[in-house]
């Protein structure tokens, strides 16, 4: 049985949601990684740049994950249940990371500066930002690599083995590198907007480093897929390859633009490069939701459930899209150099 138009529509929405989660929420995690790695005399200014970039948007960006999870669960409940059983442990680690990241960031933002707790929360924020995308990347590889087996509705997956295969390790590092890369590229733009040339230089260098790392990991990933995930490799050869190509080209353009100081072009190209990785993964594992035993059509809720979901998606998008536009317009539009970043690791909200 092949997938219906309704199922494809919902799947595309999930794909868009996932892509935006990586591009936006992923960058917030990447920001946390750079926060963890901040060092030297510019450390406090780096952290306050990161805080001011993440602060207004991270909750909205985080909702993309909730969107993906709830739509998956509403439209493909069998896949959601199976993944929950199979990836019980890594999902647990990821949600712990999500909780600690968000809480630590809020506590750091609203707590008093220069206390011991402040340092603790900063550290927790950084570590959680590092662990979470890594583990989520491992989960993605587990879904694609064919290690989760399902027969007669029973999931066969041992607690640890399914998400710690070779592909999972590469995907974990790739996911982390992509988040760090996106964050460094975006933060370069933010540094330019804040008129902070020293920070701009530092994040540009980091963007180059993380971008090269991500590119190398993606190439290694292809080799591992060939050896470790036959179904996915065949999908890559048949349908996924244009995305591999577009990812490589966009990645190269992004690196060049970063090197030459065209940070806005670099931001767009970096987003295309990362989005292509996600799209290529999705297309290559089609028609499976969980390789190799569960297709989208098998996992889908009945038509009577999908119809209202699609209507909800349309209405919801009509409400959310302009709101998101407003959010990014207010906080991310270029405003010229504004308040200095020297003090206030907690952005605009240092308490009296």
């Amino acid at each position, binding site marked *: 049985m092949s997938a219906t138009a309704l199922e494809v529509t919902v799947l595309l929405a999930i794909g868009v949601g996932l892509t935006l989660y990586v591009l936006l929420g992923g960058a917030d995690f990447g920001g946390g990684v750079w926060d963890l790695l901040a060092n030297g005399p510019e450390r406090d200014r780096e952290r306050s740049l990161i805080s001011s970039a993440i602060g207004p948007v991270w909750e*909205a960006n985080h909702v993309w994950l909730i969107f993906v999870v709830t739509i998956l669960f509403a439209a493909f409940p069998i896949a959601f249940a199976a993944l929950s059983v199979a990836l019980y442990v890594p999902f647990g680690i990821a949600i712990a990371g999500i909780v600690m990241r968000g809480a630590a960031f809020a506590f750091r933002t609203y707590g008093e500066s220069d206390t011991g707790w402040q340092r603790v929360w900063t550290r927790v924020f950084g570590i959680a930002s590092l662990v979470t995308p890594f583990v989520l990347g491992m989960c993605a590889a587990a879904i694609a690599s064919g290690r989760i087996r399902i027969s007669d509705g029973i999931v066969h997956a041992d607690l640890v083995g399914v998400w710690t295969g070779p592909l999972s390790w590469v995907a974990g590092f790739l996911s982390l590198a992509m988040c760090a890369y996106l964050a460094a590229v975006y933060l370069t733009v933010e540094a330019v907007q804040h008129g902070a040339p020293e920070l701009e230089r530092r994040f540009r260098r980091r963007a180059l480093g993380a971008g090269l790392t991500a590119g190398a990991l993606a190439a290694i990933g292809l080799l591992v897929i060939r050896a470790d995930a036959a179904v996915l490799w065949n999908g890559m050869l048949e349908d996924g390859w244009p995305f591999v190509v577009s990812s490589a080209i966009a990645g190269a353009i992004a690196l060049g633009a970063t090197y030459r100081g065209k940070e806005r072009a670099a931001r767009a190209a970096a987003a295309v490069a990362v989005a292509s990785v996600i799209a290529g993964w999705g297309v290559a594992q089609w028609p499976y939701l969980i390789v190799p035993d569960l297709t989208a059509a098998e996992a889908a809720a009945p038509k009577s459930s999908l119809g209202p979901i699609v209507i909800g998606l349309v209405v919801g998008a009509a409400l959310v899209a302009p709101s998101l536009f407003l959010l990014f317009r207010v906080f991310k539009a270029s405003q010229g150099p504004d308040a200095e970043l020297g003090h206030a690791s907690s952005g605009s909200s240092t308490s009296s």
Partner: protein
Amino acid sequence: MAVSLGFHIVFAALGIGLPLLLVFTEFLAIRRDDAVWMALTRRWSKALGILVAIGAVSGTVLSFALGLFWPGLMGRWGAVIGLPFALEAFAFFIEAIFIGIYLYGWDRLTPWAHWFTGWPVVLGGAASAWFVVTANSWMQSPVGFELSANGKVVDVQPIQAMLNPSTPVMTTHMILAGYMATGLTVASIYAVGMLKGRRDLYHRRALAVGLTFGLVLAPVQVFVGDLAAKLVAERQPMKLAALEGLWDTTADAPLTIGGIPLPGREETILGIRIPGALSWLAFGHSDAVVKGLKEVPPQDRPNTILVHLAFQAMVAIGFAFLGLGLWSMIGWWRRGRRALPDGRWFLRAAAVAGPAAFIALEAGWIVTEVGRQPWIVYGQMRTADAVTTRGGIVWWLLATVGTYLLLGAACSWLLIKLAGKPRGVEMTEDAAEERTEETR
């Protein structure tokens, strides 16, 4: 799961309630160009920043936990109750987007534009609460599907499931509870401040706003609560029996106030009984037959002690709020309708009201969830059949409790810090000073 939900419910309640307080105080601040109202608004918006962050992440835990702990529930019923969760994501989007604009947009928007961005937060919060509670009310009143001959779920109608008979009353009850709990928490924080001698305008106004929000809704909530109980009487007779500690099926059933049910002896001791009152409350006439717990074998009964006590606590607190509301009104009247009472006993009562509201909130949640046991989907699926087959639940539980205790403690500590300042008696100056600092 229960722990996660019990934790989340606190932040969710404050997260939907506090924005409503904020749009009110900010309106007064802008309209009257009033520094004290603005200082309150600014202060509370910081509290909101923390609360919403914790609410957002603990809510994420729940969306995963549904699958992690209840794969049986999701795999079988996901198609029926998935819709409200999907729609909730959008409501939460609106809330999260505008919370970002609201919290960080003070000096990027004009005052009135800023005030407007508070409204989507209020509405998004209420809508998320509504959607999530529809899913819970479906678990009480499962409709919107048929079972085929071999027991498969067919003919799924998710909209009908969402608008199940329990939805209107339960969603209203929950959202009102969130508003009340928020108002009374605010009131109690500032009542404590006033008891410590900080009786400035800042504290008085904060107390007045909190009490008004909390107590004006109390009579409405008692009325809605009565509707909720009637619904339970109609649809979940064993839950009603557990709420009331009623063991024998009887006409002219008495209402038991207080008392301790003893499952071993199948009787409830020490309560005050009002003859016929339960029949009358549940069905509108005193000779109506009310089913007792003995109708079903013990393994089909909920934990009667817990449910009965929780229910009694919730109702008692609800009526205490009515009393406190009357006290406030009479006091206000006697002071020429200008000020609320500020005697020590009144402030003490107000100080207790906040924690009491959360006890009532959690008790209400115990009533609805534990009262439904042993069913997870009433009459359709037992909790034991829905729970995950994975081991290690105990570790999850410990980790969850530990994490939430830590976060709860850190969060409360920060909020108390926030509430404690500014200290000055001469509020206008302090507020002005704070304003300049914060807009920097």
